């Protein structure tokens, strides 16, 4: 998976182009307002994507703890409502904590380091192949078995329609 450019980088590029290339050509006030709204919505996506999964997991664990705490604070209170809270604390609040997701920067950094390791290994295998090492061919095949599916995934993620924009 290519993690560069980040989603925030791409959105920033779109925002710059909207402001510089599109906005000056937009004639009606309504359309200009739409561009401003689009800019704002794009900004929220840029801010949301890198933290969304981490925030959701943290909040899930906080919610289960909160449901349990609320139930405990009611002590031996009686009545349907209290029973309902106790029951909810056991069901929804009874699950194991979900493991925390590392930050975007942490995942991205480690992914990049490992990917560079794959590239460096290609270079080393090339050296071995050129020196006639018989085992290197099988090792290269194994490396390509890893590269192949990730490339296909990448292709799926980055393919948008056919052809190249603006080219007849």
């Amino acid at each position, binding site marked *: 998976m290519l993690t560069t450019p980040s989603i925030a980088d791409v959105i920033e590029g779109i925002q710059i182009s909207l402001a510089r290339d599109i906005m000056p050509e937009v004639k009606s006030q309504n359309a200009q307002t739409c561009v401003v709204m689009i800019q704002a919505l794009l900004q929220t996506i840029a801010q949301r994507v890198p933290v969304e999964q981490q925030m959701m997991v943290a909040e899930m664990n906080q919610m289960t703890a909160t449901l349990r705490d609320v139930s405990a604070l009611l002590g031996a209170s009686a009545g349907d409502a209290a029973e309902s809270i106790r029951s909810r604390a056991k069901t929804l609040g009874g699950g194991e904590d979900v493991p925390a997701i590392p930050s975007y920067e942490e995942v991205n950094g480690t992914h990049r380091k490992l990917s560079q390791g794959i590239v460096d290994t290609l270079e080393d295998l090339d050296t071995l192949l050129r020196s006639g090492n018989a085992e290197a061919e099988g090792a290269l095949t194994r490396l*390509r078995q890893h590269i192949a599916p990730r490339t296909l995934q990448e292709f799926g993620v980055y393919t948008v329609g056919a052809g190249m*924009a603006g080219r*007849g």
Partner: protein
Amino acid sequence: MEIQLQEFLARQWPDADLIEIEEFAIIAGGYSRETYRFNACISRGEIRQTMPMILRKDPPAAAAILDSSRQMEHDLLHRVKEHTDIPVSHSHFVENDPVTFGEKAMLIERVHGSGEPSLLFHGGANESQAESVATQLCELMAKLHTTDVSKLNPTGELSDPRNEGIDVSSWSNYMDSTFRYYLRSYERMAFAPLPVFYDGFLTLRRNRPRELPLVLCHGDFNPSNFLYENGNVTALIDWENSHVGDPREDLGWLALMDFLTNTNILGSVKEDGGFLQHYNKLTGFGVTPEEVNYFSMFSGANIGIPVISAVKRRLSKEHDGLMTLYILLPAIQSEMVFFQCLGYPMPTAGDA
């Protein structure tokens, strides 16, 4: 820009009484250069002449996806016209002073014809012209590749147009020096680790094909770089990446771009049994489909290196153009061509 054009043309044609610029408009879709269309209307006494022209201008250096010379392109267009009957635009002027138009530029004839190859294929309005146009493209490529290279490159400037140490003294030296250029350029283009491209560069070096004579390659022989009308190719355009190289480079690049632009030029020739067979009959080169695959990667690297390097400069914020961000998409799609040419194993359950 119209005023600059008017003043520039007035300097070139001092005998004109009046020069007017009409119908000036930007042409969309030029990825490497900024192109504008206009009519230059020249009055000399009672005579008024209208010349359809194109201003072809360099982008700012940091945003350029291909660093090429307008002077070189201007000179080459003249030589192609002089030594072949390949249809090309007449290049009227080259302006190397960036002050005039903001960057270096050239003014060329605007040739008539459609620049919409997509209309030739997949049920498009011009589908009936596809076979004829594709056959002519094949023949024009063969003609270029069989033209004496010394006539098209008399001063040697197309031997190493990027000044990367390419040695055209023999086919073997050409390949070796090009591999060195590709491998040392990887760092310049790797905005992230790009294992498929790097694997491709290394594999190219390990598996060189048989030797063929070095010729002048168009360098960007792709489905967007020709104009056509009534089943005829009216011009081959965009000669900026021309260089002395292996003739299979143009074949490989056309195959790659046929895939990327969703056209079918290679599949539209019937004469002699197909594009490659027809080309081989005309040139005697005997190119195989495997060699076309090899040179799809080879020429993919040739153009990919400057293009993806521009993407890297964009991502490191040396400039902020949208196009260099967008061009990341076809660049990644071109990985698939490398993928296929390298014969990557198709994934099965459990692969990781």
